[in-house]
């Protein structure tokens, strides 16, 4: 019995690899194939709400590929340069949504880097007890519900919110400033929520730096800035890249923050996808949007993974 089993069950090593591998292939990799497939279907009032690609009729099998969902996006790209901004806002909604997402994700990456680097640097150089407390203080907001943190900004930024109430009370302004539902509020919400994703990888790399390097450089007469530019910055490059990618890539696909802080005026591509999936019930369009988004994101993702792998091999 045992022998019979061992003949059919994979050996220990293969078995250990197979369990997580099969799970990831089935639930993470395989689904992308269905996205690609359904992006070539047409919406239909049926269960499921799209037409099949393969149809059997009188022992004949036909494949119907509908590229119309990609044309919607492509046509917008083509006409984008030729129309005025007012028309573009009306007619090129997908292009604008892609552009908004990439632009604000990039700005988020820059802002989190500018705020996160000095924070991570100072945490890494603090003495051990302080370091632990400071890190914990970064982690606590991160462990608190993401949705609730976004909601907090609504209360602060809205017309009768905290900032406007204070400014009105101080007499700085007479009428409330419009801060919520602007690109500013979306950017602020994104920077706030993605900051820990920047700080933690930066900290992990900065804390590994050997303090003796700084001492040696200082003994040899290097100024603080020279030390920073010639030693700290190059040696923390891997942390900068890791943090930037951990922020930029998911931020491009952000949905919740523009939905709650953008109020329909700042629309990301993730929101267009959710609209096509939900209210519009146009799943093939949502799938085409996802395929295009994936095509835009795969180069940075692959590049980042290569980079990480190279780093690990160098460390080993």
């Amino acid at each position: 019995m045992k022998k019979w089993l061992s003949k059919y069950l994979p050996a220990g090593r293969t078995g250990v690899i197979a369990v997580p591998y099969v799970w990831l292939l089935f639930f993470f990799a395989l689904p992308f194939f269905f996205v690609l497939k359904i992006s070539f279907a047409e919406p239909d009032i049926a269960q499921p709400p799209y037409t099949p690609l393969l149809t059997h009729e009188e022992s004949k099998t036909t494949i119907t590929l509908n590229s119309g969902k990609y044309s919607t996006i492509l046509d917008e790209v083509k006409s984008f340069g030729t129309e005025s901004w007012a028309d573009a806002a009306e007619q090129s909604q997908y292009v604008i949504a892609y552009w908004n997402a990439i632009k604000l994700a990039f700005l988020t990456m820059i802002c989190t880097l500018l705020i996160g680097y000095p924070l991570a640097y100072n945490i890494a150089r603090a003495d051990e007890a302080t370091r632990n407390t400071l890190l914990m203080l970064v982690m606590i907001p991160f462990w608190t519900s993401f949705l609730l943190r976004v909601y907090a900004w609504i209360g602060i930024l809205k017309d009768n919110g905290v900032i406007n109430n204070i400014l009105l009370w101080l007499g700085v302004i007479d009428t409330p400033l419009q801060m919520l539902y602007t690109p500013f509020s979306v950017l602020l919400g994104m920077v706030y929520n993605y900051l820990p994703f920047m700080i933690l990888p930066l900290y992990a790399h900065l804390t590994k730096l050997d303090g003796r390097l700084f001492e040696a450089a200082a003994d040899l007469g290097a100024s603080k800035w020279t030390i920073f530019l010639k030693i700290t910055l190059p040696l923390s490059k891997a942390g900068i890249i890791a943090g930037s990618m951990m922020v930029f890539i998911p931020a491009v696909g952000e949905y919740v923050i523009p939905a709650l802080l953008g109020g329909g005026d700042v629309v990301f591509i993730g929101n267009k996808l959710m609209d096509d999936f939900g209210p519009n019930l146009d799943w093939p369009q949502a799938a085409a949007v996802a395929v295009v988004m994936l095509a835009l994101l795969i180069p940075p993702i692959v590049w980042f993974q290569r980079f990480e792998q190279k780093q690990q091999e160098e460390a080993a």
Partner: protein
Amino acid sequence: MNKMPLSNRLFMVMGYFFLYVPIASLVIFSFNESRLVTVWGGFSFKWYGEMFRNDDLLHAAGLSFKIAFLSATLAVVLGTLAGFVLARFGRFKGQSLFAGLTSAPMVMPEVIVGLSMLLLFVSLQSGLGCSSDEPLGLLSRMGCWAFGERGMITIWIGHTTLCMAYVAVLVQSRLKELDRSLEDAAMDLGCHPFKVFFIITIPVIAPALVSGWLLSFTLSLDDYVLTAFLSGPGSTTMPQWIFSSVRIGPTPEVNALATVVIVVVTLFVVVSNRLMLSAQAKRDKAMQAAFSGKS
């Protein structure tokens, strides 16, 4: 260590101020008598009472906790295997694809992951013939039981896939830091690799497993986007309740919920941090003793 210059200190204070102002405002306005969240109408605990009488919220919270518990547990099992394979198995066929698949869920936008998983489940449902009246085979009957309708099981699978990536990274980096010699010694002495894994590797990486489980639990408890794709009617989770009430017009009830979450999280982080630090100190000491030959 050198003392921090004043300018750095100032920057740190501002940075932490930025991190904590929204949290403070959430807590303060949870005690607001007025329905309008940010217009102060006097001090009151009334929204805490409202919250505990809100059946929709309690039901959603119950479901969220159940899913978070299940997802964290399965994610720790699968993530530990994945992290162990990546840290200890060296090169094997398909290794770089495996490494890519393990870490990709962390960066891949959730709208894409959610939509693709949904389309997988929907295709499985029609492929297995779940809605037809024809008699089903045993396999498809099992498939339909699991994926037949969107609900707890589909959300569980989605959250597990997301969370196991985080666990794998934690386990992998913990294993890389650790000395292999204990495992090697046990194996040299004829201990079966499975036994080595359970009596040496697992206890040694236990802190990473605990933090992986906790991280998975909070990620799952917090997830809105994946759940929006994978949940069906009747499976509203807590984030979905929060999202829709924020959209419709929030009351300080949401702030009361937030305050409870913040208090619980803070206590948890502080306590587990203390425990982890003392456990680590103890273990480091034991390791040192073991390697220096003293008992």
